[in-house]
């Protein structure tokens, strides 16, 4: 089966009101080309599950969010994402604010097809108070302890950015941390990958590389070739976090500055135009890997 498609094909398969998981972590390996495609589309009222970075800030600024299920939104080196901050302060979307680990457990519960996973995490905090939908359970064993029943976070779709993929949906993530992309993939009904490069199956995999595959190809619905598709987040190996771009993004908070940012970097005919707008291949390739 050939699963190759365009970013526009992916977004055409999404619907208003869907729950969408976005892979990566903060400023690393976010499927930003797909996020920008959503911004250009009429899609609305989305519920987004994310270890949030500029993916959340952009969708919030574009008015696409009905609800955010999250543990944090941060630009790492620049701790606060101003677009998330402004929208959150305005009460522009609902929140289901969780511990980072609870997000993982919710995805895992969806993968396992159980209604919840028990955990002590969240007890003693406002996470359980602010989410009245999250219930407590008592252990049926001798300890009889009270635990949080973290509900399954089932996704209608997952958007993930990987290093390489083939047209059949095989993929590898060669960056140092696969994050929870594997869980997002399995928790979702439809899984769309953007990748730096589509390559032949013989090139993508061998005995050494197989362990970098997040999941088998049967999980995958569609594959989009988007070189530098994680920019301005990091796509290691290849390119680091574009801090200069993130600063420009973070500063574009007035309506005029935001309109200018959108015109310059979002409302473009093709992904190649975006790559050119942010300085071209040579410039992105010269961004060093992040140092913490």
């Amino acid at each position: 089966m050939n699963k190759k498609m365009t970013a526009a094909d992916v977004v055409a398969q999404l619907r208003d009101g869907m729950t969408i998981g976005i892979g990566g972590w903060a400023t690393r390996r976010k499927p930003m080309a797909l996020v920008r495609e959503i911004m250009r589309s009429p899609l609305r009222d989305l519920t987004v599950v994310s270890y949030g970075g500029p993916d959340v800030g952009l969708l919030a600024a574009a008015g696409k969010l009905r609800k955010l299920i999250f543990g944090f939104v941060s630009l790492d080196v620049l701790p606060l994402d101003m677009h998330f901050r402004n929208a959150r302060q305005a009460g522009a979307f609902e929140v289901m604010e969780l511990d980072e680990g609870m997000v993982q457990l919710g995805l895992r519960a969806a993968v396992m097809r159980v209604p919840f996973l028990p955990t002590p995490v969240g007890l003693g905090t406002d996470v359980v108070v602010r989410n009245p939908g999250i219930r407590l359970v008592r252990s049926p064993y001798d300890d009889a302890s009270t635990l949080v029943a973290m509900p399954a976070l089932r996704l209608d779709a997952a958007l993930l950015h990987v290093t390489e993929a083939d047209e059949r949906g095989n993929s590898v993530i060669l960056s140092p941390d696969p994050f929870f992309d594997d869980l997002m993939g399995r928790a979702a009904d439809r899984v769309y990958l953007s990748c730096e490069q589509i390559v032949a199956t013989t090139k993508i995999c061998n005995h050494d590389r197989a362990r970098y595959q997040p999941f088998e190809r049967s999980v995958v619905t569609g594959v989009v070739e988007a070189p530098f598709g994680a920019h301005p987040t990091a796509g290691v190996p290849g390119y680091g976090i574009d801090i200069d771009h993130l600063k420009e993004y973070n500063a574009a908070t007035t309506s005029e500055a935001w309109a200018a940012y959108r015109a310059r970097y979002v409302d473009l005919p093709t992904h190649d135009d975006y790559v050119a707008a942010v300085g071209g291949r040579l410039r992105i390739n010269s961004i060093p890997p992040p140092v913490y």
Partner: protein
Amino acid sequence: MTTHSYTLAELCIAQCAEVWRGEGEVLATGIGVIPRIAAGLARLSFNPDLLMTDGEAYLLAEPVALGPRRARDPLVEGWMPYSRTFDLLWGGRRHALVGPAQVDRFGQMNISVVGDYTKPKAAILGARGFPGNSISHANSIFVPNHSTRVFVAGEVDMVCSAGYNPQRWPEGKVPSTLRIGRMITDLGVLDFGAANHAVRLLSGHPGVTVAQVQEATGFPIVVQAETPVTPAPTDEQLALIRERLDPRNLRGTVFKGDPPGDRR
């Protein structure tokens, strides 16, 4: 033994390092410039067994200097992606040193929102890993601006990190896995060691009075008959901080004007 003058940042680093003394083979996580240097200092001086990460996905065999790396990559001793970090931390073998926006008398911490929850005055990060960290492993606190804005009266606006508040716990029982270590601030060192986990002042930094600390804290603190003065960093510690861990002096940017540690 100290023969050199030292800055407030260096005093705080030496005191922050103390949170890992005697903690054994745990993951030391320091969030921010001073906690990170402090973790390296603890590792190089009195707790060589500490585990440390590069902040991305690897365990480091030796602490690295802050800022851009030198030509040589740091020596790596293991892999620590986020999924493994959660497995480790749920097991309890970690001691984090964090910098919350608000702390209350129960040790509850907030890094999510200030003000009304639905339309907050300030949205910060979100609960992050604080709920899981607080119930799983030891956490200590670094506050560079000791004030009633940080050490609030009543409870913090959003309890991200659980604390010693029985009313927040099922059957009023604070779990035994909850352990809040020290609080190092620009004024002194405190902990939750008084009766019923009340906050007490362990030492005041040179030139800081007890009254000053109390005035800057939104809840009563327990003070001793004679409050000790925070000891100066040793010459060995200062050499490690200045030459090995922070040669670019990023610590000099933490406090406005980089004041001296001894304010007498």
